[in-house]
């Protein structure tokens, strides 16, 4: 087994997800299958290979630092589940 149920629970916590006990067994099996499959990359010797994180060799795309029009606050807030006084409302943190 590449990954155990308790590891799944830990990763779920990191990913801000939770699973019912009924789902978790099936999920662990599926994730295992996938991790076993992707481990075929271990067959390749990549010690001298540079990683590619991007298909094209792009450099930083910078534009002039000038003020441009932006969307009004009420438009930005229009999709918020809860809003008040021009801000997003979240559950109390402190």
């Amino acid at each position, binding site marked *: 087994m590449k990954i155990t149920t308790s590891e799944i629970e830990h*990763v779920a916590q990191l990913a801000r*997800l939770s699973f019912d006990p009924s789902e978790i067994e099936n999920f662990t099996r599926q994730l295992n299958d996938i991790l076993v499959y*992707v481990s075929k990359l271990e067959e390749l010797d990549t010690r001298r290979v540079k990683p590619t994180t991007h298909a*094209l060799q792009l450099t930083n795309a910078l534009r002039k630092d000038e003020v441009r029009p932006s969307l009004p606050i009420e438009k930005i807030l229009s999709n918020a589940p809860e809003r008040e006084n021009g801000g997003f409302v979240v559950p109390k943190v402190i």
Partner: protein
Amino acid sequence: MSNLIDLSISELHNILKKREVSAIEVTRAYLNRIDNVDPKIRAYLTVTADKALAQAEDADRRLKKADAVTPLTGIPMGIKDVICTRGIRTTCGSKILENFVPPYNATIMEKLEAHGAIMLGKLNMDEFAMGSSTENSAYHPTHNPWDLERTPGGSSGGSAASVASRTCAGSLGSDTGGSIRQPASYCGVVGLKPTYGTVSRFGLVAFASSLDQIGPISRDVTDCALLLNAISGHDDRDSTSASRNIPDYTGFLTQGLKNYTLGIPKEYFISGLDSDVEKSVKHAISALESQGSNVVEVSLPHTDYAVATYYIIAPAEASSNLFRYDGVKYGLRVADYKNLMDMYIKTRSQGFGPEVKRRIMIGTYSLSAGYYSAYYKKASQVRTLITRDFKRAFEKCDVLAAPVAPTAAFRLGEKIDDPLQMYLSDIFTIPVNLAGIPGVSVPCGLTSNGLPIGLQLMAGHFEEAKLLTVAYNMELALGLCENWPIP
């Protein structure tokens, strides 16, 4: 006059320009077609009839004055629901965005509006473009117009099925690992994934940012070139957008194939390749050969590692991109929660479907402490090897020709409980995204039970003109698949 919905974009443009028909008439014909056919196909998530008719009126004004008329003025299109449309709900096929109404347009929507194109509605897709069958849509599956019990492919299943069932004249999809080409192949239409950076991603809801690219789905290669003309070009709102001059892609089509060398990658003709698919693809290759192109065998030795590479890189990027769905700024927030953390967890667990959760989990796991080198770094190194394979192949040929997928459309429900089998249906399309090169799917035959088969053509970075030239010549040689007799 033949039925309006049977005309290609270029044919429609000709009669719109001559004022033989109005954009309103064309739009009404398509809205009727949607009413009649889409209840069976279910390609649309949202139909925007009123907006479409208002846009058609505007297009008619332009056509009347012959003012700013382009080949897309008055052409009714469908848009994959992963592309932000101002004032029109954009769900990404997810419950977490069920009520999301973007306050802005994607750059490509602004471009289409500038052309006077008409949007008929938003098209179904696998949730967050994760899937190969459109069954991962949180709303409903889409059916293949050639056989309603089969999948149209995915993730742009709605985009391909709508073009094939004549409920739009052309559509836009997005392709991260094959999501334009595979459904185009399954539905018998043309689908192009452009070179990474050709089409702005501004307003495309992110899945895997280093792989995602928007592209057209159309009935024929000429329409594909017309749509690519309209959506390509640098955008300073997308920092990965390439600054290059965009040629008129339709200008290349009628060139012959005399100086072309086609490469046949031997790793794409493996066991597991359906015999009808193999036969049709080889038949298409010999048709191209008889038109004057040279054919050579080439090798892409790391092909067999592409799916594994992709299923580390794409979920890693996705897990990071999808952290924005936190129930705060937009999208779903559950009603009952104890505190902030509980709100995050419940919102995401209820809002995302199983495949999205699987990928978030794989991505989070592979990026977590202690696993980064073994997974993400390793996959990024293999990505280099896969890219190098293509570079070497393109030293020997102009365009690669291969199958799009190992089989024709599979049955709805056939792979839904086996994620790995579903992933393997993208085995021939994924390498193109990893290397960032362009790829197109063109219909090339039918299986013995009458399902379309696609030929995949691949070229070097920014060589879309070569790709479309070969595709056009193949279309000339074989004709459109809707006219083929069922074997």
